[in-house]
């Protein structure tokens, strides 16, 4: 017999293999080579987490105890998959259009993004999953004990409880490493999915191998096997009709509502078309998994000594026949079933806990402390860190609860009995879920009532009695609560004689549905609920906006600050840039149109869940508005009208975009005209001042003959220096003109970016006001091939600008360097007030200055910088939302010389071609 150490080593090696596969898959997905990761086959295999240790070990035990009834657990999901056109297709479409992150998110989002509903569903899901996780711990523990022999258990695996404890700890660590290494923008985990798919193959192969061994190795063929089945203790097929129907129904319901099934079915679904393949391939998988269960059970009953645990026949049967290798394969299959379930279930539950409990709580606490804290840049810690921490803690918490249940229930119950308790718990979501996607009249209060009613009955009739007399006193079990016999947990309202499970299913789902329907009929939904209801129920007709935000009030910059903290700076900046481009604007700040806010909220919902995202946008925006248009959409029931309106909307969106572009162009032209006038007077002034003094002093020299040598020297000196000033002015004008006409040839050289920055800092700070510069020279240690001198010129200008305009008491400039997609990105961020929103567009245009009093020059520095960067194949832009003035310079790591005759792409400011003024 294998020792404990060998088993532990095998488990660890297997886990390491899974981790490696997940790691490689995630790296492939990141590098864009992950096309094969999202194939229909992988999707189908990932659904196999439905088959847990319950299936692997428990099904045989179930068959040995109750005959063919074990099949109901697989018939239900088969019917759901075969009937995908009814429900699953709609569920997946809704999940994708609404960026749903969990079953709690779906229900809360449907009923007006209700936070309370999300919390109830989350709590119920945790409680419901607890027995299920305990089941996995129990099966792994049992299989350890069966394999190694009870007596060979050595410290720290002193007894079963200790083994279960260490298994729980190991699984928690593994899941944390696996599922929460990073916070994905849309809650997808390609690495986890591929590992699950691998586990699906492992457990299927293991079970089939044992089955083939039993049928052909022990029984001698199919006919002999069938004869043995009929001759066995299972005798005849006499199913209990009530249990047969109730279990099929509950398993079908649980297939849709189990948090982990919802995670793989809906959230991780990468393509709706995968459902088509899964609709027949997954039933085939289920059939293969359940095919050899009865033969194994029958042979086990026949060959194993009386009193041995039928839940472990899959493992003990090969062992008793001296097939150590087969037994080891079977052990790995069981271990694999348990780990995959625990991983996905705890990832799904931790997502729900962090999105629906921790983050809302955090927002609420912060909202109490300082109003609008989210909008303030630099306030508090990184939300992403909080979310990750919350997820890690809740994974540990979920496993701890599972262990607790294992201890409380004594670890002795049949696996199937434990699993069914979980199924009935999550089946309580079904009325709210189906009502939500098929019935527009379903309301939030109705859903809440139904869920609570079902939950209480499940707790009282199924969960508490499952602990035996441990929690509910024996008196309550026998005589009912408060001695009222009609409140007996297994015979409510005096209806005795039913199987306790069927009894609990009937009452909990019955009263759940009744409460849901009656309260829905009697209550009136809020406007947001009605909008979401229309969205969900008619998802195939119109998958557009759900509710309108009042545009214009929001400060896009505040939204950007918030989005950066949730999505991460890079994704948020990309998103805002893309949105601005969609509106036909340049830069990072789109106009806060309702459509943009809609998409932003959905993007955030992908990370935080709908209810939280709604709250966060609401905090930044002031409040949510349901516009008249939206109400019209609710009131207007006819399909034609909506379609017609849709066409008009497309046109009006197009018009709005053109109008925005025209408005921007017009504003720009007007500003340029104003600037031109201002510049003309400025340039005349600049040219006139030296000219006046030159004229005056040369007249003095000409007219006054009797002047002493010292005075003559002095006047000539003044004339000379004024002439130099004029020359410098004209030199710089020429520089800009040459750059603009593209006549300059670049002096491309290789060099290190850090050297360029050093040079710029040295030159700029030599004679300026003091400025603390924070930078990471290591990040800047990249090699560039570009015109280094020109780049230095740009950096000097940016640093000098920070010196001049940063109005903080202790001016500080942060220079951050990163490389993305073959381009170097250099951010210059100071801690001053930054550039006001209205002037961010203008500052790169010639002659523009932010404030009149401070400027030393005529405002040409940034215009020259922009020309230089365009020539180097890069860009320079103002980066809003960084808590100060911030400029972003991007340039390719290797510049291509565009040649002196090709003019770079030019902006509208070039429409007026005027002589320019020098750099400051």
């Amino acid at each position, binding site marked *: 017999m294998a020792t404990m150490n060998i088993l532990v080593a095998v488990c660890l090696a297997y886990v390491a293999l899974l981790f490696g596969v997940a790691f490689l898959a995630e790296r492939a997905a990141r590098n864009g080579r992950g096309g094969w990761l999202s194939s229909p086959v992988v999707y189908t295999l990932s659904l196999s987490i439905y088959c847990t240790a319950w299936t692997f070990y428990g099904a045989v035990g179930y068959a040995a105890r109750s005959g063919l009834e074990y099949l109901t657990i697989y018939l239900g999901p088969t019917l759901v998959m075969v*009937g995908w*056109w009814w429900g699953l297709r709609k569920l997946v479409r809704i999940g994708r259009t609404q960026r749903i992150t969990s079953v709690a998110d779906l229900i809360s989002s449907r009923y007006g993004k209700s936070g309370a509903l999300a919390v109830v569903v989350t709590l119920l899901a945790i409680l419901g999953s607890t027995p299920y996780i305990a089941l996995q711990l129990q099966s792994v523990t049992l299989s350890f004990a069966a394999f190694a022999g009870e007596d060979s258990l050595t410290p720290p695996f002193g007894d079963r409880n200790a083994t279960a404890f260490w298994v729980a700890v190991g699984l928690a660590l593994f899941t944390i490493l696996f599922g929460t290494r990073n916070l994905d923008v849309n809650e997808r985990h390609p690495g986890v999915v591929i590992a699950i798919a691998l586990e699906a193959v492992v457990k299927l192969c293991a079970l089939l191998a044992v089955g083939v061994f039993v049928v052909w190795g022990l029984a001698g063929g199919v006919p002999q096997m069938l004869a043995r089945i*009929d001759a066995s203790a299972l*005798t*005849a097929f006499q*199913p209990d009709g009530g249990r047969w129907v109730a279990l099929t129904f509950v398993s079908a319901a649980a297939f849709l509502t189990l948090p982990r099934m919802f995670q793989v079915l809906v959230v991780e679904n990468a393509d709706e078309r995968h459902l088509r393949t899964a609709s*027949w391939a997954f039933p085939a998988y289920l059939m293969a998994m359940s095919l050899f269960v009865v033969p194994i059970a029958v042979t086990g009953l026949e060959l194993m000594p009386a009193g041995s645990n039928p839940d472990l026949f899959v493992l003990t049967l090969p062992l008793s026949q001296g097939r150590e290798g087969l037994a080891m394969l079977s052990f790995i299959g069981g271990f694999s079933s348990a780990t995959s379930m625990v991983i996905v279930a705890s990832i799904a539950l931790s997502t729900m806990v962090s999105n629906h409990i921790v983050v809302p709580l955090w927002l609420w606490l912060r909202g109490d402390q300082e109003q609008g804290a989210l909008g303030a840049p630099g306030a508090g810690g990184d939300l992403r860190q909080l979310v990750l921490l919350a997820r890690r803690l809740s994974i540990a918490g979920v496993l701890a609860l599972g262990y607790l249940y294992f201890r409380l229930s004594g670890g002795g119950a049949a696996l199937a009995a434990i699993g069914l308790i979980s199924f009935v718990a999550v089946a309580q979501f079904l009325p709210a879920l189906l009502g939500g996607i098929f019935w527009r009249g379903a309301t939030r209060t109705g859903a809440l009532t139904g869920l609570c009613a079902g939950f209480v009955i499940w707790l009282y009739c199924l969960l508490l009695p499952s602990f035996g007399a441990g929690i509910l006193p024996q008196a309550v079990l026998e005589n009912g609560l408060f001695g009222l016999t009609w409140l007996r947990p297994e015979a409510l309202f005096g209806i005795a004689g039913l199987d306790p499970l069927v009894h609990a299913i009937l009452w909990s789902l019955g009263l759940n549905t009744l409460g849901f329907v009656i309260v829905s009929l009697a209550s009136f939904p809020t406007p947001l609920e009605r909008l979401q209801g229309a969205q969900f129920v008619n998802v195939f007709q119109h998958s557009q906006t759900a509710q309108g935000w009042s545009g214009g009030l929001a400060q896009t910059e505040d939204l950007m600050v918030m989005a950066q903290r949730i999505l991460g700076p890079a994704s948020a900046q990309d998103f805002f840039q893309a949105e601005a481009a969609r509106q036909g604007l340049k830069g990072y700040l789109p106009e806060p149109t309702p459509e943009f806010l809609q998409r932003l909220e959905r993007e955030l919902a992908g990370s935080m869940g709908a209810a939280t995202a709604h709250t966060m946008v609401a905090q930044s925006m002031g409040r949510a508005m349901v516009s008249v248009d939206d109400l019209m959409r609710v009131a207007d029931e006819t399909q034609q009208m909506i379609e*017609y309106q849709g066409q008009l909307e497309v046109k009006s969106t197009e018009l709005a975009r053109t109008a925005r572009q025209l408005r921007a162009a017009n504003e720009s032209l007007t500003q340029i005209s104003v600037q031109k006038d201002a510049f003309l007077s400025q340039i005349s002034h600049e040219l006139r001042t030296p000219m006046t003094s030159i004229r005056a002093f040369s007249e003095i020299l000409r007219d006054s003959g009797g002047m002493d040598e010292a005075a003559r020297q002095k006047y000539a000196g003044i004339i000379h220096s004024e002439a130099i000033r004029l020359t410098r002015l004209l030199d710089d004008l020429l520089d800009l003109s040459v750059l603009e006409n593209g006549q300059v040839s670049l002096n491309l050289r290789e060099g290190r970016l850090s050297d360029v920055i050093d040079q710029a800092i040295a030159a700029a700070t030599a004679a300026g006001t003091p400025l603390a510069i924070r930078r990471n020279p290591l990040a800047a240690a990249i090699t560039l091939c570009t015109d280094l001198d020109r780049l230095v010129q740009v950096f000097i200008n940016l640093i000098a600008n920070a010196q001049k305009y940063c109005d903080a008491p202790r001016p500080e400039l942060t220079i951050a360097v990163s490389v993305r997609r073959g381009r170097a990105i250099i951010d210059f961020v100071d801690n001053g007030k930054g550039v006001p929103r209205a002037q961010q567009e203008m500052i790169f245009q010639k002659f523009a200055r932010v404030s009149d009093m401070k400027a030393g020059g005529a405002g040409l520095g940034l215009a020259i910088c922009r020309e230089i960067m365009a020539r180097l194949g890069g860009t320079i832009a103002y980066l809003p939302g960084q808590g100060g003035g911030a400029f972003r310079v991007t340039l390719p790591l290797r510049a291509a010389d565009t040649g002196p005759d090709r003019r770079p792409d030019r902006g509208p400011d070039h429409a007026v071609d005027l002589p320019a003024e020098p750099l400051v």
Partner: protein
Amino acid sequence: MRPPAPPLFLERRSYRQRRVRDAARLLPLLGVVLWLMPLMFAADGDPAPTSRAMIYIFGVWLGLIAAAAALTLGLDPATDDSAQPADTPETTADRPD
């Protein structure tokens, strides 16, 4: 201004698509009925042997899998994205001439 009323009849191909979808909707109901049948096996008082019940249930299973796979092949992915309720034609292209 009302958009024109949808035409009453469909082209042959779209008609076929509709019926495939109907079949896809009806298949699970067929499965439910067939899998409830074993409950009647014992109705005449003489319980059926487990092996026969097993062969029946797994036979239905295989049949459902094959039927679902066949229907998936018949469903056109292009029109899968039904933007309209089931009883109006998908696009103008589907209208009869």
